[in-house]
């Protein structure tokens, strides 16, 4: 029974890590096909923003929000200045955002210094049997679930969501219908940056805040995005995170942390090998095979 709880706890932890790391990247990728290589740096800006905000006296939730907004601001500037020129040219967008990532991370080193005091905030632990578990991890899990639910609701119920889905589906058609696709892209990028920054801010309670902050989360985010594919943001993200979290947890418990990461990578490579457009695409194909065929018309 205890083992089950440990597994669930670690699964929840991995789920939160993967979801929060990847959500911002996923939104941008799903909408524009752009993999924002500066994603990790946006997380770093969120972390720094939150830390500074907290030091300045803001209560924790506001400090986190401050971090998110700082990242959003930077993200929007980057989008307007650089990224939007590359929406039809995806390989160049990779290279350009990678350049931005270098500027941001090295720039942060110069401007903000090697590190800053992180947020000291103890949520405390709870005991199950002899073992103590962090409450904060549970909170993060809750937030992760909330993010997915929130994004689903956003796309399902709001005007923005509708326009966004239309643009994703067929940008030319959406434009013909009067949707300002450039604005949708900008807002989407901003949303992605906000999610990245907020995630960074949330993680800053658990990790040292330094210019290389993003570097630990970038590979994880990429792995999730690659496994998810761009076919369907919510389904892809959820499915990918669940699959990867399961593998990571199972291997980490039975082996070690390093093994968990390696297992995640191997799984990602296998998924992508056999379903080159990600899991959401594979799911769609599988459903089409199961459906009863008719002669159409």
């Amino acid at each position, binding site marked *: 029974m205890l083992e089950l709880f440990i597994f669930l706890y670690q699964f929840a932890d991995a789920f939160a890590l993967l979801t929060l790391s990847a959500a911002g990247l996923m939104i941008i990728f799903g909408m524009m096909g752009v993999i924002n290589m500066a994603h990790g740096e946006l997380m770093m800006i969120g972390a720094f923003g939150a830390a500074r905000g907290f030091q300045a006296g803001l209560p924790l939730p506001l400090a986190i929000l401050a971090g998110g907004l700082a990242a959003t601001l930077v993200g929007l500037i980057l989008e307007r200045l650089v990224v939007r020129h590359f929406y039809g*040219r995806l390989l160049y967008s*990779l290279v350009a955002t*990678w350049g931005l990532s270098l500027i941001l991370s*090295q720039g942060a080193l*110069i401007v903000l210094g090697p590190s800053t005091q992180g947020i000291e905030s103890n949520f405390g632990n709870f005991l199950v049997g002899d073992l103590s578990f962090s409450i904060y991890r549970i909170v993060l899990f809750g937030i992760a679930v909330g993010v997915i639910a929130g994004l689903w609701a956003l796309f399902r119920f709001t005007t923005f969501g509708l326009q966004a889905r239309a643009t994703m589906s067929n940008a030319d058609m959406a434009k013909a219908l009067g949707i300002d696709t450039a604005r949708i892209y900008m807002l989407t990028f901003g949303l992605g940056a906000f999610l990245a920054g907020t995630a960074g801010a949330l993680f800053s309670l658990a990790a040292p805040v330094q210019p290389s902050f993003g570097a630990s989360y970038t*590979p994880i985010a990429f792995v999730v995005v*690659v496994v998810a594919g761009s076919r369907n943001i919510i389904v892809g993200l959820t499915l990918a995170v669940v699959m990867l979290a399961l593998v990571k947890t199972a291997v980490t418990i039975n082996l070690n942390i*390093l093994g968990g990461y390696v297992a995640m990578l191997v799984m990602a*490579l296998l998924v*992508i090998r056999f379903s080159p457009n990600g899991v959401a695409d594979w799911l769609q194909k599988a459903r089409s095979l199961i459906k009863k065929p008719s002669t159409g018309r």
Partner: protein
Amino acid sequence: MTFSLINGRIEPGSSKLFWFGFCVLLAAAVVVPHLVGRYTLLNLNSFLLMTFLAIGLAFLWGFCGILSLGQSAFLGIGGYAYGVIAINLAGVPGQTGLAFVGAIGTTVLSALLVSWIIFYGHLRGVYVSIIMLVVTLLFETFLNQTAGPQWTIGVASLGGNNGLGRFSGAIQELPSLKLGAGEAAVLMIGKSKTFFYVTLALVVGCYLALRLLVNSRIGVALAAIREDPDRTETLGYDVRLLQTFAFCIAAGLAALSGILYVSWGNFITPSVFGVTSNILPVIWVAVAGRRSLAAAVLGAAGLQWGSQALALQGEYALVIQGALLVVAVLLLPEGLISISNVVSKYLGKSSNPNLEQMPQKGRDHAA
């Protein structure tokens, strides 16, 4: 209308002026080691050995349309493999030669594995580029954790972030390449003229060989694959095999850089798998121009030299290079070499059609 292989139409630069410039540059390069001090020579050697990584990337990206953002992974695999094999063969005659061959072999094998995933898995677009980056970053994470004594391959200690062959203060020797045997043997150490000349010869050799390749029938097929792999397949070409071939060549070249790197400095750390190591060759090739092998070589050497000169001033070298990359893709996506294209058009010479880019809506022409 004969197709001269060296002077074909795919690698730009086939005029008499180009070859004259080539000879002048080569002559200058031959003379340089005698004019500079050991420290400068050490630096020049480090710039030179990186050019293989760059030329491989340019070949893969500019000529085959495959942008791999993690090419330094192969540099790392080559270097680590060389070190591991050499340590395990300590005292064996032909140690470094065997290590060299083994390292290239290991890297090519890993390239074949990656090819199976990318090309035989029908990956397209950004996935291809990202996969190598993910692999290399996870290599870095993995190797950084291997500091403990249990992490060995044979007797070689992986050493974690202290570097290959280093644990608890002890150092296993990572030997420089040894040329010749017995009394007459020469070591390719970082500060030596031997290193410079051998590497220079290799650079020239690889450049000419790749030139031959891109202008050959295979080169034309690769150029077609770059533009439209599906159409090329319907013309009877085994596209996946050709892409795998190109990928292995680029990986082999990166491994050569890795082996020379170890020979140069007698150390290697997991940072070769990291983001900086991987982004630098992309910067060199993007700024210089990926459609020209010569530009890749010169760009790699020149930008490394420039960055070092800048690094003496402070930490701005990387920021500036990052900015250079952004500016390059924004304003001059074909690299600096496209300026020469504009110039020669202005001078009335016929321009190489492979350098011209017309923006096409909806099509990704960054290949």
